[in-house]
């Protein structure tokens, strides 16, 4: 492998890994605060990608205008979903929570299939096929754009969680619900924000990955498979774990698919998940003691 190829593959891996990190972060955020897994996560990502393509084709606006609209729409969808369905769930209603999110996933996926049809589509942005040439290096602009958006948002989420009062309250709830409620943190408010941000991140990662991959109604499936593995390997509810494992997976995948089929890559991801479950059941970065 020449150094140029190495750098190109690495950049590709970081670009995809950063979106995986965003997506898995949303999943971990929702789990951390509500203590249930959103099985519809992949479908919100798909809806994000579908929506951005529908908006751009339907109204002719450019990517930079459509993306914030999609993110806002996902955010609102998250808040509405929280107030309609998830708010009523109690601690320990995990089967109920899983089945409700599976139901939502099926409605979204098959609804999209019904409305938009199964044909894959490509997002036409004006920079879809352009590249930057630096000497021997050829870097697609779309990956740079995806990477910069993801890094900016990751930074924003980090600042939000660590530098604001709301972020502090959110981390408090994730660490210990009972204690957080006792010191006067409003559980419902925080949960609503967490779900809104989580689903918003989902829509965003859909809008961003739409730059790199084709868009079709069952795409959520494929990413959800990886995202679930990411959060299990990183440790359910561990935000840092989701981000680190997300990046790692993106980069490893980018190199491995040079030599292996994507099927073998999926085997590898599954194998890693089983190994983590066997040897470190709470994940690589999970809280080692759960109460």
């Amino acid at each position, binding site marked *: 492998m020449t150094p140029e190829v190495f750098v190109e593959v690495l950049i590709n891996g970081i670009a995809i890994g950063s979106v995986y990190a965003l997506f898995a972060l949303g999943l971990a955020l929702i789990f951390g605060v509500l203590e249930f*897994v959103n099985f519809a996560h992949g479908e919100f990502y798909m809806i994000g990608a579908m929506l951005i393509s529908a908006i751009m084709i339907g109204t002719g606006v450019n990517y930079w205008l459509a993306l914030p609209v999609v993110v806002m729409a996902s955010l609102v969808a998250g808040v509405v979903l929280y107030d309609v369905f998830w708010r009523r769930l109690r601690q320990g209603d995990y089967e109920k929570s899983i089945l409700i999110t599976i139901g939502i996933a099926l409605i979204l996926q098959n609804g999209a299939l019904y409305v938009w049809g199964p044909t894959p589509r490509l997002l036409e942005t004006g920079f879809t096929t352009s590249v930057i040439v630096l000497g021997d290096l050829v870097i697609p602009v779309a990956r740079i754009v995806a990477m910069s958006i993801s890094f900016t948002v990751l930074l924003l989420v980090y600042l939000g969680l660590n530098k604001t009062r709301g972020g502090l309250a959110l981390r408090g709830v994730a660490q210990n619900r009972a204690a957080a409620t006792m010191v006067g943190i409003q559980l419902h408010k925080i949960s609503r924000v967490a779900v809104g941000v989580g689903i918003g991140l989902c829509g965003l990662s859909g809008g961003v990955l739409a730059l790199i991959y084709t868009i079709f109604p069952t795409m959520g499936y494929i990413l959800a498979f990886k995202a679930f593995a990411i959060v299990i390997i990183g440790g*359910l509810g561990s935000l840092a774990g989701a981000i680190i494992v997300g990046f790692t997976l993106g980069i490893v995948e980018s190199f491995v698919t040079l030599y292996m089929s994507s099927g073998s890559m999926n085997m590898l991801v599954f194998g890693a*998940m089983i190994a983590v*479950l066997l040897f470190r059941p709470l994940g690589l970065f999970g809280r080692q003691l759960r109460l």
Partner: protein
Amino acid sequence: MRRPASTWLVLLLLMPALALPSIIESTYYMSIAVTAAAFCVLSVCLNLIYGYVGLLSLCQVAFWGLGAYATAILTAHHDVSIGLALIASGIVAVLASILVGIASFRVSRHSFAIASLVFALLLQHLAYDWTSLTRGAMGIPGLPVPELAIPLVGRVAFGRAHDFFYLMCAWAIVTILFVRMIILSRVGRALVAIRENTSLAESHGLNVFRYKLIAFAISSFFTGVAGGLFCLFISIADPSVFDFYYTEAMLVMVILGGAGTFWPVIVASIVFTFAPEFLRIGEELRLVLYGALLVAAMLAMPEGFAGFVKMRRRKRQRTEFSEALAGKS
């Protein structure tokens, strides 16, 4: 607790169903009947692991698909006899269940649900990608027609839906009897104890891990063989056999029937296989409808129809009781 005799009674009541092939002419409706019998097996197995043990397994479809592929590969590529291939499919499914079980039973129930879902998704990916074994999206067509030498009748080929119905029904009955027997036995009581309070069951000396694994293995065996039978029926094994559609249908049947109740789940399997056909709902909208049903059921009657009826009855008794009290005073 009900006595096992009721099992025979219910099966006796179901006997008229065996006359269906001579009443119904249409092959289309007959193949739906075969599917209904297959779904009975699937939902009884899911009910065993979810309703009685409390483990939400999202990989029953993986065992079903594994069974289908094992049967298809063994009969079409290796000339193994059908009976042997079906048993092998059951064994393959059991091995897979042990792998998933050992890895994920020790962690939280959430981890089990996720790990089982990831396993199901992985197998569908593999069915598409491992082309040297599964021929990818093309699938493995042209499977042999099962034949059986029955005393007094002679050799019977189960080629048409009308004949295959008996084969699938036989397997459904075997499954129902066996699972019913397990549930009514010591093992069944241990399983319910685990569902109700795992720590308490453990502190009473139950080997929770082993019981969970036994239940999981049983449910995967019957599901795997049913998958093998089903692919013989449709005469092809392709990646759609791993479709999430099956998981969804199974969940709707078990949950709306009432997880942890035995007969209502079987009734729900039959109702929910036939209802969409009669309503003439297309594939995509059917899944949307199932999804909506699932969400609605979870919000309105989480114990399923059986639980709903039980709750209503209890409420009525309570009001009658309080009215009687009020009348007395």
